[in-house]
């Protein structure tokens, strides 16, 4: 009797009558559901805090919190995933059914229930849950498309700038500095011109991957432009920006990059800045400061990093 369709959907049974509880439990397990049991409304409410529970069968009459109150509580709760609720009741008067459904139940079964009917009603619930899962998945895909750079899988330009802005807001409240590093692959145009864009892409992907692995877990990195990457560093003074920038420079130049035409030696130029000791600074201002330092790094002969220590005074950059 096992159904492969249910793929262990977690169902909560909130029922204080042991006979009914056992009938529900046995059958649902036979049909391939993962069953969680609660003997009263309060335990059910605690169990429902688990995101994985997508379907619930509530007995109407229960001690502490009854099934109808439980429905109301679930519906008031803000949760990304929908909980499909079947109310189990020996009340079959029309006004009871209306009250049950109005409280937020999706369906109801009148006791004593027939197991085949229960099975069919659970399947209805599963259809709704499957539909919502598809919807959530599409939403997630769209979010990824809208925020991620498809080539490097880093944040895209708009998103990394947004993250930086959010970080600056948070940090100004907490009075902590935010750092930025703008990274540019040296002679990237030459790689593209001599070996083709495909190889250029391979290099970019590998550089992105190495940098991502060598920033701190709470730092964020995105593709700022063609071969320019931007790192946002929360709680980061100039000296730490410098440390991280140097680390990033090394992880790329120390090991050649494997491409379809063989190993290529790649180096980076990096420009760092920090909001440390700045009274007010925007994301744009911080990026500009990093950009000026990057420009300086290139003038210094590339494969190096420069830290912009005096945001106001280092003005002879590009643009």
């Amino acid at each position, binding site marked *: 009797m096992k159904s492969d369709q249910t793929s262990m959907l977690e169902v909560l049974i909130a029922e204080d*009558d*042991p006979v*009914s509880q*056992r009938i529900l439990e046995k059958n649902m397990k036979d049909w391939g559901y993962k069953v969680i049991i609660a003997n009263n409304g309060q335990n059910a409410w605690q169990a429902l805090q688990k995101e994985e529970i997508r379907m619930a069968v509530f007995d109407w*009459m229960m001690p502490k919190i009854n099934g109808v109150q439980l429905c109301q509580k679930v519906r008031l709760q803000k949760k990304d995933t929908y909980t499909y609720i079947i109310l189990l009741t*020996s009340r079959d008067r029309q006004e009871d059914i209306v009250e049950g459904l109005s409280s937020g139940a999706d369906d109801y079964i009148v006791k004593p229930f027939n*197991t085949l009917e229960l099975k069919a009603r659970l399947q209805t619930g599963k259809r709704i849950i499957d539909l919502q899962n598809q919807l959530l998945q599409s939403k997630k895909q769209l979010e990824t498309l809208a925020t991620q750079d498809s080539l490097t899988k880093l944040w895209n330009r708009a998103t990394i700038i947004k993250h930086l802005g959010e970080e600056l807001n948070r940090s100004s409240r907490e009075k902590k500095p935010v750092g930025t590093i703008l990274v540019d692959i040296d002679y990237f145009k030459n790689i593209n011109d001599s070996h083709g864009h495909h190889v250029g892409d391979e290099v970019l992907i590998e550089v992105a991957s190495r940098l991502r692995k060598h920033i701190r877990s709470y730092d964020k990195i995105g593709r700022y432009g063609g071969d320019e990457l931007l790192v946002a560093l929360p709680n980061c003074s100039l000296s730490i920006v410098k440390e991280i920038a140097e680390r990033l420079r090394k992880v790329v130049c120390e090991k050649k990059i494997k491409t379809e035409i063989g190993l290529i030696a790649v180096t980076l130029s990096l420009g760092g800045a920090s909001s440390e000791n700045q009274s007010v600074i925007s994301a744009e201002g911080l990026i500009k400061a990093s950009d000026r330092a990057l420009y300086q790094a290139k003038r210094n002969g590339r494969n190096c990093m420069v830290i912009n220590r005096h945001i106001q005074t280092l003005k002879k950059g590009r643009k």
Partner: protein
Amino acid sequence: MSDINTSKTPLPIDIPSALERIGGDESFLFDLINIYVEDFTDKFEKLKAAVEKGNFETITDIGHNLKGSSANLSLPLLQEISYQFEIAGKERDLEKAEKNLNLLKEEFHRLKIFLQNRD
């Protein structure tokens, strides 16, 4: 099982109907009956105490609960008597509750005898 049975009194349990409801598994039905018997014993004591104390809310709740599990197992008289407790509790009718206490005990006894004879 003929000692209590009269032509008018239904059997304490309608086995075919209970089996149909739970999907036809006889050994599962007897598991359920065991759960019921154990639960009943506990609830009956609580019900008796509630009647003695005149605790109508508990009388209603236990009556409702027993009505449900009796219905699940197709125990027609146990279901009906339990329902009478639910009503007695709601109507705050202690006399009715007291009267039904004996009926409930007798019907439960009848069920047990029926099951023993069946073995």
